[in-house]
C-alpha cells in the first residue's frame, strides 16, 4: 500500500480550494460571460449547490466504506471489470483536468507574461516542479497548500479591494443576463468547475475518518463557491458584459487596471503570485491523484517510476493540446460542459450498485 501520510481538515480544505478556484484565473470567466452575460457571479452559486449535491453521493459512498479509497470501493461495488473501467475513467479524467489546466495556464502565461518564452519551456519547468512535489508526497502537498493559502488569500483580497476604483454596480444589470433559463442550464452544467472535489475520494484514507472527509468536502465546496463568486463579481463590476467575454484572463486584466495615481499601479505581480501558486497546487494535486489512483488500480507500491512516466505524458499531452492552436481553449470549454459526469455520476452509479448489492458497511462514527 502506498504511504500517503496523514493530514487534517484545514490542509485538505486549502488543497481542494486552491485546486478548484485556480480556474477563475484563466479563460473560464470569459467563456461563462459569453454564455450567461454579467451574471456569472451568482450562476456559479447554482454550480456550487449542484456540486454539493454531487459530493453528497461521493460522501455517502465513502461512508459505506470507511478508510477505503475510490479504486478499492469501485472494485468492491462494481466487480473487477467494471470497477477497473470506472476507476480508469476517473483516473483519466483527473489526468485530463491536469493537462487542460496546464495548457490553459501556459496559454494565459504566454498571452500576458512570457510572450517570447516557448511553450515547451514553460510546460517543462512546470512539469519538473510538479514531479518534484509529487515525489515529495501528498502530505507535503497538503501542508504546502495550507502554507501558501494565507499569502494567496491576502493577495487575493488585496487585489479585490484595490480593484474597487474600477467597479461599477450598473454593470450587473440587466440582472438576468442572457436569461434565467441559460443561467440555470449553464449553472447545472458548470458544476464541473467543482469536479475536482472527487480528489477527496482518492485521498480519503489520508484523512482521519469519513466524518472529516465530509467536513472537508462541504467546507471546500462552499469556500470555493464563495471565492469564485467573489472573483467573478469583481470582474463583472470591472468590465461590461460585452467586453468581459472578449478577454483571455479577466482577473489578470482587472489587476492590471488598478491605478491609484503615481503611487499604486502595476500591481499585477501580486496577482501573478496567486495565479502561479494556485495553478501549481492545482496541477500537482490532480496529477498526483491520477498517479495515485493508477498505482492503486494496478496495485503498484512505488509511485515514483509511474510519476516520472506520467509526467512525460502530462508534458506531451499539454504540449499537444497547445499545438492544436487557438481553438483548443474553446474545445476545453465545450468539454467542460460535460465535465460533471465523471466526478459525480461515476460515484453515484457505484453508490447505487453498492446499495443494491448491499456492499460496504455502515459508518461506525
Amino acid at each position: 500500500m502506498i504511504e500517503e501520510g496523514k493530514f487534517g481538515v484545514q490542509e485538505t480544505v486549502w488543497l481542494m480550494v486552491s485546486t478548484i478556484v485556480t480556474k477563475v484565473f484563466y479563460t473560464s470567466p470569459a467563456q461563462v460571460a459569453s454564455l450567461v452575460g454579467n451574471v456569472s457571479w451568482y450562476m456559479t452559486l447554482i454550480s456550487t449547490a449542484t456540486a454539493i449535491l454531487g459530493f453528497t453521493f461521493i460522501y455517502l459512498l465513502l461512508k459505506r466504506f470507511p478508510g477505503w479509497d475510490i479504486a478499492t470501493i469501485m472494485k468492491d461495488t462494481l466487480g473487477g471489470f467494471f470497477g477497473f473501467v470506472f476507476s480508469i475513467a476517473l483516473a483519466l479524467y483527473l489526468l485530463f483536468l491536469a493537462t487542460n489546466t496546464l495548457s490553459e495556464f501556459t496559454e494565459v502565461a504566454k498571452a500576458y507574461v512570457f510572450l517570447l518564452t516557448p511553450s515547451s519551456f514553460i510546460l517543462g519547468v512546470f512539469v519538473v516542479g510538479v514531479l518534484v512535489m509529487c515525489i515529495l508526497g501528498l502530505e507535503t502537498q497538503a501542508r504546502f497548500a495550507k502554507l501558501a493559502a494565507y499569502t494567496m488569500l491576502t493577495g487575493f483580497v488585496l487585489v479585490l479591494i484595490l480593484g474597487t476604483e474600477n467597479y461599477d454596480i450598473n454593470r450587473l444589470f440587466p440582472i438576468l443576463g442572457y436569461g434565467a433559463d441559460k443561467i440555470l442550464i449553464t449553472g447545472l452544467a458548470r458544476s464541473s468547475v467543482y469536479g475536482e472535489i472527487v480528489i477527496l475520494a482518492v485521498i480519503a484514507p489520508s484523512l482521519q475518518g469519513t466524518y472529516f472527509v465530509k467536513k472537508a468536502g462541504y467546507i471546500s465546496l462552499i469556500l470555493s463557491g464563495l471565492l469564485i463568486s467573489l472573483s467573478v463579481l469583481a470582474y463583472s463590476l470591472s468590465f461590461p458584459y460585452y467586453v468581459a467575454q472578449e478577454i483571455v484572463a479577466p482577473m489578470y486584466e482587472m489587476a492590471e487596471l488598478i491605478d491609484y495615481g503615481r503611487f499604486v499601479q502595476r500591481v499585477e505581480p501580486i496577482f501573478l503570485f496567486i495565479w502561479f501558486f494556485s495553478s501549481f497546487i492545482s496541477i500537482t494535486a490532480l496529477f498526483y491523484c491520477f498517479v495515485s489512483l493508477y498505482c492503486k488500480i494496478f496495485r503498484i507500491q512505488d509511485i515514483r517510476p509511474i510519476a516520472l512516466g506520467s509526467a512525460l505524458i502530462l508534458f506531451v499531452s499539454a504540449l499537444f493540446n497547445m499545438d492544436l492552436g487557438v481553438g483548443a481553449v474553446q474545445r476545453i470549454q465545450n468539454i467542460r460542459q460535460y465535465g460533471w459526469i465523471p466526478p459525480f455520476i461515476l460515484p453515484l452509479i457505484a453508490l447505487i450498485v453498492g446499495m443494491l448489492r448491499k456492499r460496504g458497511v455502515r459508518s461506525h462514527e
Partner: protein
Amino acid sequence: MNSRLIPILMTVILAVLLAGCYDASEVDDITHVLAMGIDRGVSDKWRLTVQFSTIQDSPGGGEGGDGGGGGSGQSQGDYTHMTVDAPSFFAGLDMLNSSIPRELSFTHLGLIAISEDLAREGLMADFIAPLIRYKQIRGSTPLMVIKGSALDFIRENKPYIGTVLSKAMQISTRASMNIGFFGHTTLGDFYSDLKSTYRQPVVPIGALNDFKTFREDGPKWGDKYKDEGEYLAGQLPRYGVRKIEYWGTALFSGEKMLTELNGTETRALLMLRGEFKRGFFTVQDPKKPELIIPLDIRPKGKPKVRMSFKDGIPNIDITVPLKGTILAIQSGLHYEQDPLLSLLEKTFEKETKSEIDQLINKCKGLNLDVFKFGDVGARYFATIQEWEKYNWNSKFKDAKINTQVEFVIQRTGTRTKTSPIPNRQEE
C-alpha cells in the same frame, strides 16, 4: 539513487532554468515610449509618432537621426521623437525599430494622442480599439483627441518644469481632477464605450495654443462678465512657453467624433457622469453683477438618477449634489451668512442647472447619451436581449430629463466675514 537526491537535483535544475528567461530584457536594451501620436498618413495610411527618452543627461544631446521607412526624427532635449508612415501600428513599430538602436517598449506609455481629423473621420475604432489586444499597452493609458496634428503636439510635448517628461504628462493629464475643464479617458474606457449598449464615448481634447487669442493691446475689458469655461481647446487667451493645453471634450457617436464641448459644458458633463472632482467656478455677484464671487466646488456625492418608462420613452430625474467654499467676495457683502448665503447658493444652483440643461439639450439633439444614463436604464430590463432590443442609444433623443442641482456652501475659506473697505468710492 537516494530518494531525497532526486527532488534536490530537480530543484537545482529548476532554479538554474528559472534564472534564465526568454522574456528577460536588459534595462539598456529597450527604450520606453512615453507618448504616441497618431495622424492620417501621407506615404501610408497612418502616421505614427513615438516620443521617448534619449537617456542622456545633457539637454540637446539626444539627436534623432532620420528614421527608416519614411520616418523622421527630431531632438527635444533629453527626449526625442520619431515619425513613420505605415499601414498599421505594428508595421510602423517594426519600421521604427529598424532605425533605433534600442527596442521600443510601450509598457510605460503615458499618452495616446489622436488627431481630430482622424477622430472626425471615424477612424479611431480602426486604429485605437485593436491596440487593446497588444500586451505592452495598458488599458489604463490616457487617451486624448488632439486639435490639429498629433505630430505637432508631440513635438511640443516637453517637461518645461523639471526634467522628467513622464511625470509632467501624468500630472497634466490628471489635472482634470482639480479643474474639471477636461476629463480623463483611458484606452480601456474608450474601447469599452465604443462597444457599449449603454452610452457613447467621450475623450478629452488637447491642443496647441498659438497665443494669437492673447492680445497685448486694445480696449480694456471693463466690467463685462465672461465665463472662463466658454473657451474651446487651444483658444485660451494666454501667453507663455508651453503651447500645450488640455481643455474640453470630444463627443463621439460610436466611432465618429461629432462635436466638441467647451470648458463649461465639460464640467456639466463630468457632474452628470459623476466624474467631477473639483473646480474653481466664477459666479456673478447677485447684488453687484459687475463683480464676481469665485467658489471652490466639489461633489457632495454621486448624482442621484431616477428613471421610469412611459410608452417606451425614458423619464429621467437627476439630482447633482455639490458643495462649495467661498474663495473671495469682491463686493465685500456678507455672503458668508443668510440671507445672502442662501441667495448665493440659489444663484449658483440656477446657473449650473441652466448649463446642465443646455448641455443635455445639445446632446439630445445629437442623440448622444454621454451621461451614463443608460447604465441606470439597464436596471429596468430583465435580460440583455430585451435591453439590446430596446436600443438605448437610439432612444435617448426622446428621453424626458428633469435636472436638479443641490448646492450648499459648507465653508467660507479663511474668513468668516468681510469687513467693508472704508471710503470706497461707489459708482
